[in-house]
Protein backbone atom coordinates (compact mmCIF):
# COMPACT_ATOMS: atom_id res chain seq x y z
CA UNK A 1 0.00 0.00 0.00
CA UNK A 2 1.33 3.41 -0.92
CA UNK A 3 2.31 5.60 2.01
CA UNK A 4 -0.16 8.22 0.82
CA UNK A 5 -3.02 5.70 1.08
CA UNK A 6 -2.40 5.27 4.81
CA UNK A 7 -4.46 7.22 7.29
CA UNK A 8 -2.59 9.64 9.54
CA UNK A 9 -2.91 7.29 12.48
CA UNK A 10 -1.61 4.32 10.44
CA UNK A 11 1.24 6.48 9.16
CA UNK A 12 2.11 7.71 12.66
CA UNK A 13 2.09 4.17 14.05
CA UNK A 14 4.15 2.80 11.14
CA UNK A 15 6.69 5.59 11.63
CA UNK A 16 6.98 4.79 15.33
CA UNK A 17 7.61 1.14 14.40
CA UNK A 18 10.24 2.37 11.91
CA UNK A 19 8.54 0.64 8.96
CA UNK A 20 9.54 3.63 6.91
CA UNK A 21 11.09 6.98 7.74
CA UNK A 22 9.54 10.41 8.16
CA UNK A 23 11.73 11.49 5.25
CA UNK A 24 10.11 8.83 3.07
CA UNK A 25 6.66 9.96 4.20
CA UNK A 26 7.51 13.57 3.38
CA UNK A 27 8.85 12.57 -0.07
CA UNK A 28 5.71 10.52 -0.75
CA UNK A 29 3.52 13.49 0.10
CA UNK A 30 5.60 15.93 -1.94
CA UNK A 31 5.55 13.53 -4.91
CA UNK A 32 1.77 13.18 -4.70
CA UNK A 33 1.51 16.95 -4.59
CA UNK A 34 3.77 17.37 -7.61
CA UNK A 35 1.71 14.82 -9.55
CA UNK A 36 -1.75 16.12 -8.65
CA UNK A 37 -1.35 19.85 -8.06
CA UNK A 38 -1.52 20.85 -11.74
CA UNK A 39 -5.08 19.50 -11.73
CA UNK A 40 -6.29 20.12 -8.18
CA UNK A 41 -4.54 23.40 -7.29
CA UNK A 42 -5.01 22.97 -3.55
CA UNK A 43 -1.89 24.82 -2.44
CA UNK A 44 -0.84 28.47 -2.47
CA UNK A 45 2.66 27.71 -1.27
CA UNK A 46 4.80 24.65 -0.68
CA UNK A 47 7.81 24.24 1.58
CA UNK A 48 9.58 21.10 0.36
CA UNK A 49 12.92 22.03 1.93
CA UNK A 50 11.33 22.88 5.27
CA UNK A 51 9.34 19.66 5.22
CA UNK A 52 12.44 17.58 4.49
CA UNK A 53 14.37 19.32 7.27
CA UNK A 54 11.58 18.74 9.75
CA UNK A 55 11.19 15.11 8.68
CA UNK A 56 14.95 14.51 9.10
CA UNK A 57 14.77 15.91 12.64
CA UNK A 58 11.91 13.54 13.46
CA UNK A 59 13.89 10.60 12.05
CA UNK A 60 16.84 11.52 14.28
CA UNK A 61 14.60 11.60 17.33
CA UNK A 62 12.94 8.31 16.41
CA UNK A 63 16.31 6.65 15.87
CA UNK A 64 17.56 7.91 19.24
CA UNK A 65 14.43 6.65 20.97
CA UNK A 66 13.53 10.17 22.05
CA UNK A 67 9.92 11.01 22.68
CA UNK A 68 8.10 12.24 19.63
CA UNK A 69 4.72 13.92 19.45
CA UNK A 70 1.23 12.80 18.56
CA UNK A 71 1.74 13.51 14.86
CA UNK A 72 5.44 12.71 14.52
CA UNK A 73 6.43 12.58 10.88
CA UNK A 74 2.91 12.99 9.51
CA UNK A 75 2.66 15.48 6.60
CA UNK A 76 0.03 18.17 7.18
CA UNK A 77 -1.25 21.22 5.33
CA UNK A 78 -2.41 24.50 6.84
CA UNK A 79 -5.06 26.86 5.43
CA UNK A 80 -3.39 30.07 4.34
CA UNK A 81 -5.23 32.24 6.85
CA UNK A 82 -3.12 30.91 9.71
CA UNK A 83 0.20 32.62 10.36
CA UNK A 84 3.35 30.65 9.67
CA UNK A 85 6.69 32.30 10.36
CA UNK A 86 8.67 29.60 8.54
CA UNK A 87 9.41 31.57 5.39
CA UNK A 88 6.14 30.79 3.65
CA UNK A 89 3.81 33.72 3.04
CA UNK A 90 0.41 34.02 4.71
CA UNK A 91 -1.83 35.61 2.11
CA UNK A 92 -5.42 34.74 3.08
CA UNK A 93 -5.74 34.25 -0.72
CA UNK A 94 -5.84 38.04 -1.06
CA UNK A 95 -3.79 40.49 -3.12
CA UNK A 96 -3.71 42.78 -0.12
CA UNK A 97 -1.41 40.30 1.66
CA UNK A 98 0.47 39.07 -1.38
CA UNK A 99 3.89 37.85 -0.23
CA UNK A 100 3.28 38.89 3.38
CA UNK A 101 5.50 37.03 5.83
CA UNK A 102 3.97 36.66 9.27
CA UNK A 103 6.38 37.55 12.08
CA UNK A 104 4.92 34.92 14.40
CA UNK A 105 3.37 31.46 14.27
CA UNK A 106 -0.26 30.80 15.04
CA UNK A 107 -0.85 28.82 18.23
CA UNK A 108 -2.08 25.85 16.20
CA UNK A 109 1.08 25.98 14.05
CA UNK A 110 3.19 25.90 17.22
CA UNK A 111 1.15 22.93 18.41
CA UNK A 112 1.70 21.08 15.12
CA UNK A 113 5.44 21.61 15.42
CA UNK A 114 5.42 20.53 19.08
CA UNK A 115 3.65 17.31 18.10
CA UNK A 116 6.15 16.56 15.34
CA UNK A 117 3.92 17.21 12.33
CA UNK A 118 5.63 18.02 9.03
CA UNK A 119 3.96 21.07 7.48
CA UNK A 120 4.30 20.76 3.69
CA UNK A 121 2.46 23.89 2.60
CA UNK A 122 -0.36 26.43 2.86
CA UNK A 123 -3.67 25.72 1.21
CA UNK A 124 -6.02 27.80 -0.90
CA UNK A 125 -9.18 29.41 0.43
CA UNK A 126 -11.82 31.92 -0.48
CA UNK A 127 -10.28 35.34 0.16
CA UNK A 128 -10.25 36.08 3.91
CA UNK A 129 -12.36 32.95 4.37
CA UNK A 130 -15.34 34.62 2.72
CA UNK A 131 -17.02 32.15 0.43
CA UNK A 132 -18.39 28.65 -0.07
CA UNK A 133 -16.50 27.46 -3.14
CA UNK A 134 -12.85 28.69 -3.00
CA UNK A 135 -13.65 30.57 -6.24
CA UNK A 136 -13.07 33.84 -4.39
CA UNK A 137 -9.34 33.20 -4.07
CA UNK A 138 -7.28 35.95 -5.70
CA UNK A 139 -4.86 33.23 -6.85
CA UNK A 140 -7.21 30.94 -8.75
CA UNK A 141 -9.75 28.31 -7.76
CA UNK A 142 -9.11 24.85 -6.36
CA UNK A 143 -10.78 21.89 -8.09
CA UNK A 144 -12.76 19.12 -6.50
CA UNK A 145 -10.67 15.92 -6.74
CA UNK A 146 -13.87 13.93 -7.44
CA UNK A 147 -14.79 16.07 -10.48
CA UNK A 148 -12.28 18.62 -11.70
CA UNK A 149 -14.94 20.88 -13.23
CA UNK A 150 -16.61 21.27 -9.84
CA UNK A 151 -15.87 23.24 -6.72
CA UNK A 152 -14.34 21.71 -3.60
CA UNK A 153 -16.55 23.92 -1.46
CA UNK A 154 -15.25 26.70 0.74
CA UNK A 155 -13.83 28.55 2.26
CA UNK A 156 -11.35 25.79 3.28
CA UNK A 157 -11.49 24.21 -0.19
CA UNK A 158 -7.72 23.79 -0.52
CA UNK A 159 -7.39 21.87 2.75
CA UNK A 160 -10.38 19.65 1.94
CA UNK A 161 -9.09 18.89 -1.56
CA UNK A 162 -5.53 18.21 -0.36
CA UNK A 163 -6.81 15.55 2.04
CA UNK A 164 -9.35 14.10 -0.41
CA UNK A 165 -6.70 13.78 -3.11
CA UNK A 166 -4.38 12.06 -0.60
CA UNK A 167 -1.66 14.67 -0.92
CA UNK A 168 -1.61 14.89 2.88
CA UNK A 169 -3.57 12.83 5.39
CA UNK A 170 -4.36 15.84 7.60
CA UNK A 171 -5.08 19.52 7.12
CA UNK A 172 -6.25 22.42 9.24
CA UNK A 173 -9.11 24.62 8.15
CA UNK A 174 -11.24 27.34 9.70
CA UNK A 175 -15.02 27.48 9.99
CA UNK A 176 -17.01 30.69 10.47
CA UNK A 177 -20.29 29.68 8.83
CA UNK A 178 -19.51 26.17 7.59
CA UNK A 179 -16.12 26.62 5.95
CA UNK A 180 -14.75 23.31 7.21
CA UNK A 181 -17.91 21.20 7.20
CA UNK A 182 -19.23 22.16 3.76
CA UNK A 183 -15.97 21.53 1.84
CA UNK A 184 -15.54 18.31 3.83
CA UNK A 185 -18.96 17.20 2.58
CA UNK A 186 -18.27 18.20 -1.02
CA UNK A 187 -14.86 16.49 -1.02
CA UNK A 188 -15.85 13.31 0.80
CA UNK A 189 -13.71 13.76 3.91
CA UNK A 190 -14.28 14.30 7.61
CA UNK A 191 -14.25 17.92 8.75
CA UNK A 192 -15.03 19.27 12.18
CA UNK A 193 -15.75 22.62 13.73
CA UNK A 194 -15.04 22.35 17.45
CA UNK A 195 -17.03 24.32 20.03
CA UNK A 196 -16.15 28.00 19.94
CA UNK A 197 -13.30 28.45 22.41
CA UNK A 198 -11.95 24.89 22.15
CA UNK A 199 -9.06 25.84 19.86
CA UNK A 200 -7.04 29.05 20.09
CA UNK A 201 -7.55 31.62 17.36
CA UNK A 202 -4.18 33.29 18.06
CA UNK A 203 -2.57 33.62 14.65
CA UNK A 204 -5.78 32.87 12.74
CA UNK A 205 -6.39 35.92 10.62
CA UNK A 206 -9.71 37.18 11.95
CA UNK A 207 -12.83 37.24 9.81
CA UNK A 208 -15.64 37.18 12.41
CA UNK A 209 -14.23 36.97 15.90
CA UNK A 210 -17.29 35.54 17.63
CA UNK A 211 -17.76 32.83 14.98
CA UNK A 212 -14.31 31.77 13.70
CA UNK A 213 -12.93 28.44 14.84
CA UNK A 214 -10.05 26.28 13.60
CA UNK A 215 -10.67 22.58 13.04
CA UNK A 216 -9.34 19.38 11.49
CA UNK A 217 -9.76 17.64 8.14
CA UNK A 218 -8.95 13.93 7.82
CA UNK A 219 -10.14 11.01 5.69
CA UNK A 220 -11.35 9.23 8.80
CA UNK A 221 -12.97 10.17 12.09
CA UNK A 222 -9.89 8.91 13.99
CA UNK A 223 -7.63 11.14 11.93
CA UNK A 224 -9.82 14.19 12.64
CA UNK A 225 -9.73 13.26 16.33
CA UNK A 226 -5.95 12.97 16.24
CA UNK A 227 -5.49 16.40 14.70
CA UNK A 228 -8.01 17.95 17.07
CA UNK A 229 -6.10 16.43 19.99
CA UNK A 230 -2.92 18.08 18.75
CA UNK A 231 -4.33 21.61 18.53
CA UNK A 232 -7.09 21.84 21.16
CA UNK A 233 -6.56 23.41 24.55
CA UNK A 234 -5.86 26.63 26.37
CA UNK A 235 -3.87 29.57 25.13
CA UNK A 236 -3.68 32.73 27.21
CA UNK A 237 -2.95 34.72 24.05
CA UNK A 238 -6.58 34.17 22.95
CA UNK A 239 -8.92 35.44 25.62
CA UNK A 240 -11.84 33.57 24.03
CA UNK A 241 -10.05 30.22 24.29
CA UNK A 242 -11.22 28.32 27.36
CA UNK A 243 -8.75 27.25 30.00
CA UNK A 244 -7.84 23.61 30.57
CA UNK A 245 -9.02 24.10 34.14
CA UNK A 246 -12.51 25.11 33.05
CA UNK A 247 -12.77 22.65 30.17
CA UNK A 248 -10.04 20.00 30.16
CA UNK A 249 -9.28 18.46 26.79
CA UNK A 250 -10.29 14.79 26.88
CA UNK A 251 -8.35 12.01 25.12
CA UNK A 252 -10.46 11.86 21.96
CA UNK A 253 -8.89 8.68 20.59
CA UNK A 254 -9.13 6.73 23.83
CA UNK A 255 -12.94 6.74 23.84
CA UNK A 256 -13.49 6.81 20.08
CA UNK A 257 -14.54 3.17 19.58
CA UNK A 258 -17.13 3.29 22.37
CA UNK A 259 -20.60 3.68 20.83
CA UNK A 260 -23.01 6.13 22.42
CA UNK A 261 -25.87 4.08 23.85
CA UNK A 262 -28.63 4.97 24.11
CA UNK A 263 -28.42 7.43 21.23
CA UNK A 264 -31.22 9.88 20.53
CA UNK A 265 -30.86 11.66 17.20
CA UNK A 266 -32.84 14.81 16.39
CA UNK A 267 -33.78 15.46 12.77
CA UNK A 268 -34.77 19.09 12.30
CA UNK A 269 -37.68 19.32 9.93
CA UNK A 270 -36.19 22.57 8.66
CA UNK A 271 -33.10 20.65 7.42
CA UNK A 272 -35.21 18.44 5.16
CA UNK A 273 -37.39 21.00 3.45
CA UNK A 274 -37.31 22.72 0.10
CA UNK A 275 -33.95 23.48 -1.41
CA UNK A 276 -32.50 20.10 -0.42
CA UNK A 277 -31.41 18.13 -3.48
CA UNK A 278 -33.35 14.82 -3.60
CA UNK A 279 -30.20 12.87 -4.50
CA UNK A 280 -28.45 14.23 -1.40
CA UNK A 281 -31.49 13.60 0.78
CA UNK A 282 -31.64 9.96 -0.26
CA UNK A 283 -27.99 9.33 0.64
CA UNK A 284 -28.42 11.08 4.00
CA UNK A 285 -31.56 9.09 4.85
CA UNK A 286 -29.71 5.86 4.02
CA UNK A 287 -27.08 6.91 6.55
CA UNK A 288 -29.74 7.62 9.16
CA UNK A 289 -31.12 4.12 8.55
CA UNK A 290 -27.71 2.74 9.54
CA UNK A 291 -28.00 4.57 12.86
CA UNK A 292 -31.46 3.08 13.35
CA UNK A 293 -30.06 -0.42 12.73
CA UNK A 294 -27.47 0.34 15.41
CA UNK A 295 -30.28 1.01 17.87
CA UNK A 296 -30.43 4.80 17.75
CA UNK A 297 -33.79 6.50 18.16
CA UNK A 298 -34.61 9.10 15.54
CA UNK A 299 -36.97 11.91 16.47
CA UNK A 300 -38.16 14.95 14.59
CA UNK A 301 -37.17 18.23 16.22
CA UNK A 302 -37.70 21.80 15.19
CA UNK A 303 -35.13 24.57 14.93
CA UNK A 304 -37.45 27.30 13.71
CA UNK A 305 -34.81 30.04 13.51
CA UNK A 306 -31.91 28.00 12.24
CA UNK A 307 -32.07 27.94 8.47
CA UNK A 308 -33.18 31.01 6.52
CA UNK A 309 -33.30 33.29 9.56
CA UNK A 310 -29.85 32.01 10.48
CA UNK A 311 -28.49 32.93 7.06
CA UNK A 312 -29.93 36.43 7.44
CA UNK A 313 -28.48 36.68 10.96
CA UNK A 314 -25.11 35.39 9.84
CA UNK A 315 -24.82 37.82 6.94
CA UNK A 316 -25.34 40.69 9.35
CA UNK A 317 -23.27 39.47 12.32
CA UNK A 318 -20.34 38.05 10.34
CA UNK A 319 -20.14 40.97 7.95
CA UNK A 320 -20.33 43.48 10.80
CA UNK A 321 -17.48 41.78 12.61
CA UNK A 322 -15.56 41.53 9.34
CA UNK A 323 -15.95 45.24 8.61
CA UNK A 324 -14.16 45.88 11.88
CA UNK A 325 -11.55 43.13 11.55
CA UNK A 326 -10.58 44.07 8.02
CA UNK A 327 -10.18 47.76 8.84
CA UNK A 328 -6.55 47.02 9.63
CA UNK A 329 -5.74 46.46 5.94
CA UNK A 330 -5.00 50.05 5.11
CA UNK A 331 -1.62 49.99 3.39
CA UNK A 332 0.12 51.53 6.42
CA UNK A 333 2.02 48.79 8.27
CA UNK A 334 1.98 45.84 5.90
CA UNK A 335 0.34 44.56 2.80
CA UNK A 336 -0.52 46.27 -0.44
CA UNK A 337 -0.25 50.06 -0.61
CA UNK A 338 -1.55 51.74 -3.70
CA UNK A 339 1.25 53.60 -5.50
CA UNK A 340 -0.76 56.72 -6.42
CA UNK A 341 -2.65 58.56 -3.76
CA UNK A 342 -3.25 62.17 -2.91
CA UNK A 343 -3.52 61.94 0.88
CA UNK A 344 -3.93 59.49 3.74
CA UNK A 345 -7.62 58.79 3.23
CA UNK A 346 -7.08 58.41 -0.49
CA UNK A 347 -4.26 55.96 0.28
CA UNK A 348 -6.64 53.84 2.36
CA UNK A 349 -9.35 53.99 -0.29
CA UNK A 350 -7.13 53.05 -3.19
CA UNK A 351 -5.13 50.42 -1.32
CA UNK A 352 -8.25 48.65 -0.17
CA UNK A 353 -9.92 49.01 -3.56
CA UNK A 354 -6.87 47.56 -5.27
CA UNK A 355 -6.15 44.84 -2.71
CA UNK A 356 -9.56 43.35 -1.93
CA UNK A 357 -11.69 41.17 -4.19
CA UNK A 358 -15.40 41.72 -4.83
CA UNK A 359 -16.79 39.40 -2.18
CA UNK A 360 -14.62 40.95 0.51
CA UNK A 361 -15.72 44.44 -0.55
CA UNK A 362 -19.37 43.37 -0.51
CA UNK A 363 -19.12 41.97 2.99
CA UNK A 364 -17.20 44.92 4.40
CA UNK A 365 -19.79 47.28 2.97
CA UNK A 366 -22.71 45.21 4.26
CA UNK A 367 -21.20 45.17 7.72
CA UNK A 368 -20.40 48.87 7.66
CA UNK A 369 -23.98 49.61 6.64
CA UNK A 370 -25.46 47.33 9.31
CA UNK A 371 -23.41 49.03 12.01
CA UNK A 372 -23.87 52.59 10.83
CA UNK A 373 -25.86 55.22 12.68
CA UNK A 374 -29.55 54.84 12.03
CA UNK A 375 -29.27 51.21 10.97
CA UNK A 376 -27.53 49.60 13.97
CA UNK A 377 -30.76 48.75 15.82
CA UNK A 378 -32.65 47.53 12.78
CA UNK A 379 -29.87 45.29 11.56
CA UNK A 380 -27.04 44.49 13.98
CA UNK A 381 -28.99 44.56 17.24
CA UNK A 382 -31.88 42.69 15.63
CA UNK A 383 -29.48 40.04 14.33
CA UNK A 384 -28.01 39.56 17.81
CA UNK A 385 -31.49 39.09 19.21
CA UNK A 386 -32.24 36.42 16.61
CA UNK A 387 -28.87 34.86 17.47
CA UNK A 388 -30.23 34.39 20.99
CA UNK A 389 -33.32 32.69 19.51
CA UNK A 390 -31.10 30.39 17.45
CA UNK A 391 -29.12 29.44 20.53
CA UNK A 392 -32.36 28.73 22.40
CA UNK A 393 -33.51 26.47 19.52
CA UNK A 394 -30.48 24.27 20.16
CA UNK A 395 -30.76 24.42 23.94
CA UNK A 396 -34.36 23.21 23.64
CA UNK A 397 -33.46 20.47 21.19
CA UNK A 398 -30.57 19.15 23.26
CA UNK A 399 -32.93 18.63 26.18
CA UNK A 400 -34.46 15.69 24.32
CA UNK A 401 -31.76 14.49 21.89
CA UNK A 402 -28.03 13.78 22.15
CA UNK A 403 -27.21 15.14 18.72
CA UNK A 404 -28.78 16.64 15.65
CA UNK A 405 -28.27 15.26 12.16
CA UNK A 406 -29.01 16.24 8.62
CA UNK A 407 -27.31 16.98 5.31
CA UNK A 408 -24.24 19.21 5.63
CA UNK A 409 -24.91 20.89 2.29
CA UNK A 410 -28.17 21.20 0.32
CA UNK A 411 -26.40 20.01 -2.83
CA UNK A 412 -23.36 18.01 -3.80
CA UNK A 413 -20.44 19.86 -5.42
CA UNK A 414 -21.71 22.37 -7.96
CA UNK A 415 -19.92 23.39 -11.16
CA UNK A 416 -17.34 26.16 -11.18
CA UNK A 417 -19.03 29.42 -12.06
CA UNK A 418 -22.51 28.06 -11.34
CA UNK A 419 -23.21 30.31 -8.34
CA UNK A 420 -20.79 33.17 -8.84
CA UNK A 421 -23.26 35.51 -10.55
CA UNK A 422 -25.61 35.68 -7.56
CA UNK A 423 -24.01 36.18 -4.14
CA UNK A 424 -27.23 35.15 -2.39
CA UNK A 425 -27.34 31.80 -4.19
CA UNK A 426 -23.82 31.14 -2.92
CA UNK A 427 -24.75 32.20 0.62
CA UNK A 428 -27.56 29.65 0.69
CA UNK A 429 -24.97 26.83 0.39
CA UNK A 430 -24.44 27.42 4.11
CA UNK A 431 -28.09 27.12 5.10
CA UNK A 432 -27.47 24.04 7.29
CA UNK A 433 -24.12 25.08 8.68
CA UNK A 434 -24.32 28.70 9.87
CA UNK A 435 -26.57 28.16 12.89
CA UNK A 436 -23.88 25.99 14.52
CA UNK A 437 -21.40 28.90 14.52
CA UNK A 438 -24.00 31.38 15.75
CA UNK A 439 -24.88 29.08 18.65
CA UNK A 440 -21.18 28.25 19.22
CA UNK A 441 -21.86 24.49 19.40
CA UNK A 442 -19.74 21.70 17.88
CA UNK A 443 -20.37 20.13 14.49
CA UNK A 444 -18.80 17.84 11.96
CA UNK A 445 -19.42 16.37 8.54
CA UNK A 446 -18.73 12.68 7.92
CA UNK A 447 -18.81 11.13 4.43
CA UNK A 448 -22.01 9.12 3.98
CA UNK A 449 -22.03 8.13 0.34
CA UNK A 450 -22.16 9.41 -3.21
CA UNK A 451 -24.84 10.76 -5.53
CA UNK A 452 -25.69 9.03 -8.78
CA UNK A 453 -23.08 11.31 -10.43
CA UNK A 454 -20.34 10.00 -8.16
CA UNK A 455 -20.19 13.15 -6.04
CA UNK A 456 -19.60 12.89 -2.28
CA UNK A 457 -22.34 13.59 0.25
CA UNK A 458 -21.73 14.58 3.87
CA UNK A 459 -23.81 13.84 6.93
CA UNK A 460 -23.71 16.71 9.41
CA UNK A 461 -23.74 15.87 13.10
CA UNK A 462 -24.17 18.67 15.64
CA UNK A 463 -23.73 18.36 19.37
CA UNK A 464 -23.75 20.59 22.39
CA UNK A 465 -20.83 22.71 23.55
CA UNK A 466 -17.65 20.90 24.60
CA UNK A 467 -18.95 17.44 23.69
CA UNK A 468 -16.44 16.77 20.89
CA UNK A 469 -15.56 13.38 22.36
CA UNK A 470 -19.18 12.22 22.13
CA UNK A 471 -19.59 13.80 18.71
CA UNK A 472 -16.60 11.86 17.38
CA UNK A 473 -17.88 8.62 18.91
CA UNK A 474 -21.26 9.14 17.26
CA UNK A 475 -19.63 9.71 13.87
CA UNK A 476 -17.39 6.66 14.39
CA UNK A 477 -20.41 4.43 15.07
CA UNK A 478 -21.57 5.09 11.51
CA UNK A 479 -18.13 5.04 9.89
CA UNK A 480 -17.44 1.58 11.30
CA UNK A 481 -20.38 0.22 9.28
CA UNK A 482 -19.37 1.65 5.89
CA UNK A 483 -16.40 1.81 3.51
CA UNK A 484 -16.62 5.28 2.00
CA UNK A 485 -13.09 6.26 3.07
CA UNK A 486 -11.60 3.46 0.96
CA UNK A 487 -12.81 4.95 -2.32
CA UNK A 488 -10.17 7.01 -4.14
CA UNK A 489 -11.06 10.04 -6.24
CA UNK A 490 -10.67 9.58 -10.02
CA UNK A 491 -7.81 12.11 -10.15
CA UNK A 492 -5.71 9.81 -7.94
CA UNK A 493 -6.37 6.80 -10.18
CA UNK A 494 -5.68 8.58 -13.44
CA UNK A 495 -2.37 9.98 -12.31
CA UNK A 496 -0.81 6.79 -10.92
Amino acid at each position, binding site marked *: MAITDLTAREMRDALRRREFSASEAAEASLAAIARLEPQVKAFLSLDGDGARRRAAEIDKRLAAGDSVGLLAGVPVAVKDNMCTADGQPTTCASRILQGWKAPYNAHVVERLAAEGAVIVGKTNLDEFAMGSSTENSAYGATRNPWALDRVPGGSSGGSAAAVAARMVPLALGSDTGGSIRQPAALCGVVGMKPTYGRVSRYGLVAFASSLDQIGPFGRTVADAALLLQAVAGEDTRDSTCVSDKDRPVPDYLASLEEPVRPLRIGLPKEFFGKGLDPGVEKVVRDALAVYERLGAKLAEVSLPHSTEYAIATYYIVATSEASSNLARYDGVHYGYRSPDHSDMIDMY*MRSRAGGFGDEVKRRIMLGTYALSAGYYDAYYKKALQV*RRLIRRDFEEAFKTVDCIMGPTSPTAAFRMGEKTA*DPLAMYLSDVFTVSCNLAAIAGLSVPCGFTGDGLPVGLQVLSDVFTEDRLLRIARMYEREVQWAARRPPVCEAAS
Partner: protein
Amino acid sequence: MALSKQEVLKVGTLSRIRLSEAEVEKFTTQLSSILGYVDKLRELQTRDVPPLAHALPLQNVLRNDEPHPGLTTEQALAGAPEAAGDFFRVPRVLDEGASA
Protein backbone atom coordinates in the same frame (compact mmCIF):
# COMPACT_ATOMS: atom_id res chain seq x y z
CA MET B 1 -34.51 47.03 0.93
CA ALA B 2 -33.23 48.85 -2.11
CA LEU B 3 -30.13 50.93 -1.65
CA SER B 4 -29.60 54.04 -3.69
CA LYS B 5 -26.32 54.63 -5.48
CA GLN B 6 -25.67 57.56 -3.14
CA GLU B 7 -26.00 55.28 -0.14
CA VAL B 8 -23.60 52.79 -1.69
CA LEU B 9 -21.08 55.55 -2.35
CA LYS B 10 -21.46 56.72 1.24
CA VAL B 11 -20.94 53.19 2.56
CA GLY B 12 -17.92 52.88 0.30
CA THR B 13 -16.44 56.00 1.85
CA LEU B 14 -17.18 54.80 5.39
CA SER B 15 -15.55 51.48 4.48
CA ARG B 16 -12.60 53.33 3.00
CA ILE B 17 -12.97 51.51 -0.30
CA ARG B 18 -12.81 53.52 -3.51
CA LEU B 19 -15.53 52.37 -5.90
CA SER B 20 -15.58 52.79 -9.67
CA GLU B 21 -18.80 53.76 -11.49
CA ALA B 22 -19.25 50.19 -12.64
CA GLU B 23 -18.73 48.88 -9.11
CA VAL B 24 -21.27 51.29 -7.67
CA GLU B 25 -23.80 49.97 -10.21
CA LYS B 26 -22.99 46.32 -9.53
CA PHE B 27 -22.82 46.61 -5.75
CA THR B 28 -26.02 48.66 -5.58
CA THR B 29 -27.90 45.78 -7.19
CA GLN B 30 -26.16 43.05 -5.21
CA LEU B 31 -26.27 44.74 -1.81
CA SER B 32 -29.93 45.65 -2.29
CA SER B 33 -30.70 42.03 -3.01
CA ILE B 34 -28.83 40.80 0.07
CA LEU B 35 -30.40 43.43 2.32
CA GLY B 36 -33.77 42.43 0.92
CA TYR B 37 -33.09 38.92 2.12
CA VAL B 38 -31.88 39.88 5.57
CA ASP B 39 -34.99 42.01 6.00
CA LYS B 40 -36.86 38.77 6.68
CA LEU B 41 -35.63 39.10 10.27
CA ARG B 42 -38.41 41.68 10.69
CA GLU B 43 -40.86 38.76 10.63
CA LEU B 44 -39.56 37.70 14.04
CA GLN B 45 -40.85 39.06 17.33
CA THR B 46 -37.81 39.98 19.43
CA ARG B 47 -39.09 42.65 21.81
CA ASP B 48 -37.97 41.01 25.06
CA VAL B 49 -35.06 39.05 23.65
CA PRO B 50 -31.62 40.09 24.94
CA PRO B 51 -29.02 40.36 22.16
CA LEU B 52 -26.41 37.58 22.12
CA ALA B 53 -23.07 39.05 21.09
CA HIS B 54 -20.94 36.28 22.35
CA ALA B 55 -21.92 32.67 22.71
CA LEU B 56 -19.62 31.73 25.58
CA PRO B 57 -20.38 33.14 29.03
CA LEU B 58 -16.94 34.71 29.31
CA GLN B 59 -16.51 37.86 31.31
CA ASN B 60 -13.56 40.11 31.99
CA VAL B 61 -10.84 37.75 30.92
CA LEU B 62 -7.83 39.41 32.49
CA ARG B 63 -4.18 38.68 33.00
CA ASN B 64 -1.62 40.17 35.35
CA ASP B 65 -0.18 43.43 34.12
CA GLU B 66 3.29 42.05 33.45
CA PRO B 67 5.25 43.05 30.37
CA HIS B 68 6.20 40.29 27.95
CA PRO B 69 8.50 40.56 24.94
CA GLY B 70 6.72 41.50 21.72
CA LEU B 71 7.89 42.10 18.19
CA THR B 72 11.21 43.83 17.69
CA THR B 73 11.23 47.07 15.75
CA GLU B 74 12.88 45.22 12.90
CA GLN B 75 10.18 42.56 12.83
CA ALA B 76 7.45 45.18 13.01
CA LEU B 77 8.91 47.09 10.07
CA ALA B 78 9.66 43.99 7.99
CA GLY B 79 6.41 44.15 6.02
CA ALA B 80 6.25 47.94 5.76
CA PRO B 81 5.29 49.26 2.33
CA GLU B 82 7.49 52.27 3.13
CA ALA B 83 9.79 52.62 6.10
CA ALA B 84 12.07 55.47 7.17
CA GLY B 85 14.44 54.62 9.99
CA ASP B 86 12.36 53.26 12.84
CA PHE B 87 9.14 54.65 11.38
CA PHE B 88 6.40 53.65 8.97
CA ARG B 89 6.33 56.33 6.28
CA VAL B 90 2.85 57.58 5.42
CA PRO B 91 1.34 60.58 3.61
CA ARG B 92 1.23 63.80 5.55
CA VAL B 93 -1.62 63.87 8.05
CA LEU B 94 -1.38 67.37 9.44
CA ASP B 95 -1.73 70.57 7.43
CA GLU B 96 1.29 72.77 6.83
CA GLY B 97 1.76 75.16 9.75
CA ALA B 98 -0.39 73.12 12.17
CA SER B 99 1.17 72.97 15.61
CA ALA B 100 2.50 69.57 16.68
